[in-house]
């Protein structure tokens, strides 16, 4: 405790505490209104058969049916595949790009940041329209190149084939996910204490040793943030799938979020959809907790 705060009178401290809480109040209000309340309502609704025109309490029936529903199982599997593939690739690639560009001159660094951040600021619809055209069976860029090179006889339906559709979704998700982590890593690496790096260099440490012993621990909180955010975004992947494949072919690209949307907004089964939402929230919480545990809460101690 600093000398200044020790010398503060209890009255002054209490007043500052009250002021702090008052400043937090608006944020708390919105948090309770738009996060906590809907969450609680979602949990309650998941225990009902709520549908357009009525609702009655059914206990845990939605959850029992959920785990017997083959489409939900397929959607959950697809979601996990997306997360398991996306999170490490996005994190490693972002770290690699960040490491490569953070020492560049300001103009070059800004250029690369702009290049990688562009898909993030571009709207999902625009991104999907461009990718959709590239994957198009008849007029798409990839098919044009592959048929032109004689690799394919006729156009291949990348998004329509169950063997490739999910991979296409993951690829697009990858391009839209790396922008923010790269910017964060560039900032984090720029904040690493240069005197420690120089000292290690003078002591004869290799570039790899400097990275793993000095830079990696320093950017650990950023890595934790990137991993958690990418995990949550991957779990909640929805817009890409809705615009690109509608979950098809034969639910090969359906995720829990997409199936939830289909159940709630196309079939009006709100209770069942909310049960999916609750299960998804629990799975995300478990994944995030596991990541915190594995990464020691973002420290190397």
């Amino acid at each position: 405790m600093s000398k200044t705060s020790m010398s503060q009178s209890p009255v002054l401290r209490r007043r500052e505490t009250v002021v702090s809480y008052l400043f937090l109040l608006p944020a708390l209000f919105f948090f309770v209104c738009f996060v906590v309340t809907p969450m609680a309502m979602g949990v309650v609704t998941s225990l009902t058969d709520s549908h357009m025109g009525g609702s009655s309490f059914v206990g845990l029936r939605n959850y029992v049916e959920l785990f017997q529903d083959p489409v939900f199982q397929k959607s959950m599997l697809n979601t996990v595949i997306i997360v398991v593939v996306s999170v490490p690739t996005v994190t490693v690639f972002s770290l690699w790009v960040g490491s490569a560009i953070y020492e560049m001159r300001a103009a070059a660094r800004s250029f690369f940041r702009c290049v990688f951040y562009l898909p993030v600021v571009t709207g999902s619809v625009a991104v999907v329209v461009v990718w959709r055209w590239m994957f198009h069976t008849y007029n798409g860029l990839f098919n044009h190149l592959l048929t032109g090179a004689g690799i394919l006889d006729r156009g291949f339906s990348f998004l329509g084939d169950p063997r490739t559709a999910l991979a296409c979704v993951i690829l697009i998700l990858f391009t839209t996910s790396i922008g923010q982590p790269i910017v964060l890593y560039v900032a984090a690496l720029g904040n690493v204490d240069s005197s420690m790096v120089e000292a290690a260099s003078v002591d004869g440490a290799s570039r790899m040793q400097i990275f793993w012993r000095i830079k990696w621990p320093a950017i650990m909180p950023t890595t934790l943030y990137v991993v958690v955010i990418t995990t949550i975004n991957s779990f909640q992947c929805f817009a890409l799938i809705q615009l690109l494949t509608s979950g098809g072919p034969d639910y090969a690209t359906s995720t829990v979020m997409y199936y939830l949307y289909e159940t709630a907004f196309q079939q009006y089964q709100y209770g069942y959809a909310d049960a999916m939402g609750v299960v998804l929230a629990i799975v995300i919480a478990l994944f995030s907790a596991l990541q915190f545990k594995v990464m020691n809460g973002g420290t190397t101690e």
Partner: protein
Amino acid sequence: MKLKKALAILLALAMAAALAACSVEQSPNNSQTGGDPAGESGSGTQQVSIEWWAFPTFGNATGYEEEIIAAFNEVHPEIEVNLTTIDFTSGPQTLTAAIEADTAPDVLFDAPGRIIEYGKAGELASLNDMFETASADMSEAVLSACSDGTDYWMYPLSSAPFYMGINLEMFQAAGADQYLNLEGDRIWTTEDFRNACQALAEAGYVPGIVYCGGQGGDQGTRALVSNLYGAQIANEDMTAYTMNSPEGIQAMTLLQEMVNAGYLDVATDMQAAQELEMFQTENCAMTFCWGTSNAISYHSDDFTQVSVPFPSDDGVPELETLYNGFCVFDNGDQAKIDAAKTFIEFICTDDEWGPKSVLQSGALPVTGTFEALDLYAGNEEMELLSSWTQYYAPYYNTMDGFTTMRTEWWNMLQRVLANGSDPQTELDTYVNNSNAAITG
């Protein structure tokens, strides 16, 4: 300290203003037209304000909705109509969210599929009183499309069949035009269709694309399958889906064989909109989702677009029907319900604006009175479509489980045509799952 206090007050005021701003209702594409919102006319008549949400059945940004509101307000200045246009992509979700949040509009311009569903769910005001006199002027088919069997939920404006469109030049170049019949009602058979597709494929064209990437325009593929061998989508009393009949299995087997032979393409990543674009840009020789509005939206001057009915083995097609109509949401205010009905009646039955509205929707009239006006005199295409009304298929869009059936449909097509699964097994799955939704 004074500065801090002033800042704190300023912050508090800003937050209060922000909260107040949040409470102001705002809708995209919302416009207020006509009426006397402030009730300043001093006429003594009670002012009523109603919300009208409209899909672009009158066309995109044509201004027709504003015109008709203005005309309505000349007769009924006491009713203010606020228009919100919604699109077919996000509109259904917007509606669902609004209904659940108790902010549904008073009037919706849509089609029976959704409207009857809302009616069954108890969200709508019954329109039985509007049909007391109007029903005598409408056919049984039209009346049944507006009702769930108990109450009338939709007031109809116009109707049109769904059919196929072909690229005549492609057919001619491939020698496939010999299988076409461009006389009379343009009836052609399943065998003609198969031979035409084969000729087109052998000439290097993409004959047609069976799109099954979602439910957009799924009525087209259902009509194709049901017509090939006369399979019925539902039973006569509309209590069960029946596409797993021998005729349905035969049709799916034929399509599977045609896809395997390269006489048809299947696209699990396309819905009707993308297939129509392919047709418009001359990348395929036919579309399975042609209709009055698509013929306008996907028109091309570069080739001859010819409307043909779906092919059938007995030469008698059964065409799916589009009905355009209005419903009134029961928002608990009788004055608004009455005002909404008055507004609907004006759009659909007014001597001047009724026929205008039918024409603006690009479809055929549904009342004997307007049919007698011969609105499309001299228009060969519309006269042809008018003659096809005799081929209207039983209307199943108002059945229970309709939304589930639609989702099951395109997934079934994917499994049979793209994955090569057994038609009977997959049709059984489709029918069983759809019927399970009926029984709840």
